[in-house]
């Protein structure tokens, strides 16, 4: 018999039912609490307006940098060098604010900084990483194309040698931060060799443009753009020297997806807590709607999914910190946590009734955001097939 056995019947913490907090160390808790406070102070008061106006405040980059959130899981070059678990906790708290804020950090740290850190030359790292960690330089990542999504190897963007230079041509699509970026990491195929090269492209290079994509109904507090490369001439020093295959971009996506599998649970938690609060205070038929069995079922299902998904994220984080996490494990987490988060958001939206469709509450914003998160960084279908291949040995999508 220990203390927890003596707890009265029917008692549990509605905000941390499985007491996951106790599985974190002091440092992880302080870091988590710091990001939560930042989100409370700096994101939540204004995010509904950003969402409505379709903007993301560029100035926030420096604040995120000062905190150490940008490239926080990378070592050296001004990066914080935190654990993968700490990075995940930060993503969770950011996305409890808005998927747009988490996307900004994912793109900067995992998609723009990571390839430079992992595949760049020493000169490239010295030049780009410290200002990117500080948020003074904003990066984006160009892989997806209008006709090349789940099958990125079918990319049409080309990098041709011309003397000592490279000349890039093509179009990249759905690029987070594209129009506000100072530098783009662009992946392109060398036609002669079929090699896939990554290039660090300053966005003021002649021939480069990044028109913003408008009329989105999801991730509105995030900038999404097209990248147009029209005879963009770059010196060989702009090429990432340490990789020349699809392994380059795919390893970046693996890093970003790892942050997403945590972040999705932040959005889910925000929706569940909004629904719980609402159900406790909304009176119909003279009682809080939390009194109704149908509402309790919804709240409990949400609570269980948030706790399970967060435990899964923490488990995968600990695996990553031990160096045991494979890309299929990441697919497991990304596939299931985003799916469950979207389910929780839709259920919460129902609990809130008409209030569930306004920006006065966070739920519809998260729900719409998660529709993007569901398909970006590997669709739910592709991650399912990756797992299908892992357990059957048969690929359903690649010959």
């Amino acid at each position, binding site marked *: 018999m220990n203390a927890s056995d003596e707890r009265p019947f029917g008692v549990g913490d509605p905000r941390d039912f499985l007491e996951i907090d106790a599985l974190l160390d*002091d*440092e992880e808790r*302080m*870091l988590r609490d*710091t990001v939560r406070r*930042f989100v409370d102070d700096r994101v939540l008061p204004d995010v509904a307006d950003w969402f409505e106006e379709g903007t993301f405040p560029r100035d926030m980059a420096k604040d995120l940098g*000062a*905190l150490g959130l940008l490239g926080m899981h990378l070592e050296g070059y001004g990066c*914080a*060098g935190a654990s993968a678990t700490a990075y995940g906790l930060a993503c969770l708290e950011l996305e409890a604010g808005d998927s747009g804020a988490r996307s900004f950090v994912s793109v900067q740290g995992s998609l723009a900084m990571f390839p430079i850190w992992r595949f760049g030359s020493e000169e490239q790292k010295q030049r780009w990483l410290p200002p990117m960690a500080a948020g003074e330089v904003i990066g984006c990542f160009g892989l997806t194309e209008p006709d090349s999504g789940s099958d990125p190897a079918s990319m049409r963007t080309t990098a041709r040698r011309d003397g000592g230079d490279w000349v890039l041509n093509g179009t990249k699509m759905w690029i987070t931060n594209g129009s506000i970026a100072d530098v783009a990491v662009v992946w392109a195929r060398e036609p002669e060799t079929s090699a896939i090269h990554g290039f660090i492209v300053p966005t003021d290079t002649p021939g480069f443009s990044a028109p913003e994509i408008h009329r989105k109904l999801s991730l509105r507090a995030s900038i999404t753009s097209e990248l147009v490369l029209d005879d963009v001439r770059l010196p060989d020093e702009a090429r990432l020297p340490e990789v020349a295959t699809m392994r380059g971009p795919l390893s970046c996506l693996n890093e970003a997806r790892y942050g997403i599998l945590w972040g999705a649970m932040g959005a889910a938690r925000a929706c569940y807590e909004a629904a719980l609060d609402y159900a406790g205070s909304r009176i119909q038929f003279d009682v809080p709607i939390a009194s109704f069995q149908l509402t309790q079922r919804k709240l409990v299902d949400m609570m269980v999914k948030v706790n399970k998904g967060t435990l899964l994220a923490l488990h995968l984080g600990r695996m990553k910190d031990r160096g045991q996490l494979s890309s299929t494990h990441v697919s497991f987490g990304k596939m299931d946590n985003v799916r469950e988060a979207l389910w929780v958001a839709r259920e919460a939206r129902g609990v809130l009734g008409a209030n569930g469709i306004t920006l006065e509450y966070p739920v519809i914003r998260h729900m719409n955001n998660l529709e993007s998160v569901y398909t970006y960084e590997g669709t739910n279908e592709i991650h399912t097939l990756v797992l299908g291949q892992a357990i059957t040995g048969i690929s359903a999508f690649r010959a």
Partner: protein
Amino acid sequence: MNIVVCAKQIPDPAEPGELDPETKTLKRDGKLILDESDMYGVEMALQLADNAGGGEVTLVSMAPDNKVDGIRTGLAMGAAKAVLVSDPALAGTDALGTAKVLAAAVGKVEGADLVLTATESSDGYTGTVPEQLAELLGLPSVTFAKHIEIADGKVKVQRQTDAGYDEVECPLPCVVSVTAGVVEPRYPSFKGIMAAKSKPLDQLALADTGLEADQVGWAGGGQEIVGVEDAPEREAGEIIEDDGTGAEKIVAYLENLKLV
């Protein structure tokens, strides 16, 4: 410029606090956090040290059970080291006893040019410790600082008053209490958080302070809490019907509360 900041660790005000019915004091056996009113002092100290082109910020604290969570927050914000006094004999220590312990802890910090405190803690609210500490240290003090500058061996303080502020100068070393809200405390950076646990933390028992058990704790208390009552129910507000003098009446009401 070496600055000492008194940093109280208190039960999280966001959690419902509980009084011990026997001692009539706040229960402090759970997690303690850095009192928000001390974050302003920490921030002010970090800025002053930066402006002076160097120097160390040291935190001093008294807490039960060697609790360090709140101190770690201050270290993560950028303080260089900390002195913590913790001893079972300190349970029940009143404001003057606290000042004695803090004075002893400040005495352990070499070369302190300036001691910063909050004007009052967010849990005890006596607001007396800064002056008691100054007296015990034999230092001059300035209270309610909203802005501090250091030059030529002096502090120049904007001292908040009901009407605005006074400009006050005081020779170093001295004790200055910092008004809540006058600076924006920085978020601890991740590098700061990770560095915090390896920063020097000098943990002292009562015996290390040179104080005797009968000077502190319940035994040394010069005051006693004789009763605790629930806060009175909020009374209904005053309704002013506007007969043309409504604005004046509201201004008079606010003036009475010293809000304008």
